C-alpha cells in the first residue's frame, strides 16, 4: 500500500510518500497506525476538512482498503 501526504500534512510528517508492507484494512485503521507512529501527524489527520482518497477517489473513513491501494490524505484544498 502506498500512502501519500499533501500540503501541511507532508510538513507535519516530514515525508511525502511511504509504502506499507502490512497494510491496515480501513482508512480509520490506517490513520490510527500513522498516529501511533507520529502523534502530531495523527492530530493533523483528524483536523476538520482533511479528506482521504483511495486510488484517486475521495472516500469516507470507514472505506475498506486493499493491499495494493494508493491512499492519499488531502488537507483542505486552497485553490490556485
Amino acid at each position, binding site marked *: 500500500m502506498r500512502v*501519500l501526504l*499533501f*500540503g*501541511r500534512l507532508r*510538513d507535519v510528517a516530514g515525508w511525502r510518500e511511504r509504502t506499507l508492507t502490512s497494510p491496515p484494512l480501513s482508512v480509520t485503521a490506517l490513520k490510527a497506525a500513522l498516529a501511533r507512529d507520529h502523534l502530531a501527524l495523527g492530530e493533523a489527520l483528524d483536523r476538520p476538512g482533511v479528506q482521504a*482518497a483511495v486510488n*484517486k477517489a475521495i472516500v469516507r473513513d470507514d472505506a475498506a482498503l486493499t493491499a495494493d491501494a494508493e491512499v*492519499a490524505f*488531502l*488537507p*483542505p*484544498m*486552497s*485553490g*490556485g
Partner: protein
Amino acid sequence: MTVRLQTEPFAPGELLAAFCQGRRDVGGVVSFTGLVRAEDETVQALELEAYPGFTDLEIGRIADAAVLRHGLIDVLIVHRLGRILPGEAIVFVAAAAAHRRAAFEAADQLMDYLKSRAPFWKKSHDATGARWIEPRPEDYQDAARWDDAPAPLSLEDRR
C-alpha cells in the same frame, strides 16, 4: 477541452493566440490570466502542489460541466505548479463560444472554481518563512454563486 498543469512558466499571449487560431465557428473568446501578487513586496514566492492524476481529472470534470452548461465550443486551462514568483502568470483560462456572454460567464465560473475549490495546496513564502494558505471567505462565496443556479438562457435569448 484541455487542462494542463505545468511547472514551466507560460506566455499568456501565446496561449491565447494559439487558442484562437483557425476557428470559424467561434464568435467570442474570453481569457483570464492570473498573476502572483507581491503584496507590498512581502510575498517572495508561491508554491503550488497538486495531486497528479487527481487534480487534473477533477479540473477536467468541472471544465466539461462548464462546456455543457454554457454551450462552449472549447476551453483551455493552464495552471502552474511548484515555485512561482511575483509578476509571473500562475493561471490561464480561455473559453470559446459562438457568442460572447457564454464565454464571459464560463471564464468567470471556472476562475471562481479554480480559486477556491480546485485541489491545490498553496504555500506562501515571505521573509519570515512559509505558511500554507487557504481560500478567503469571499473566494468560497464567489464559487457558491454558481451552485444550483438556474439553467442559462438559450443563445437566442441572449442576442
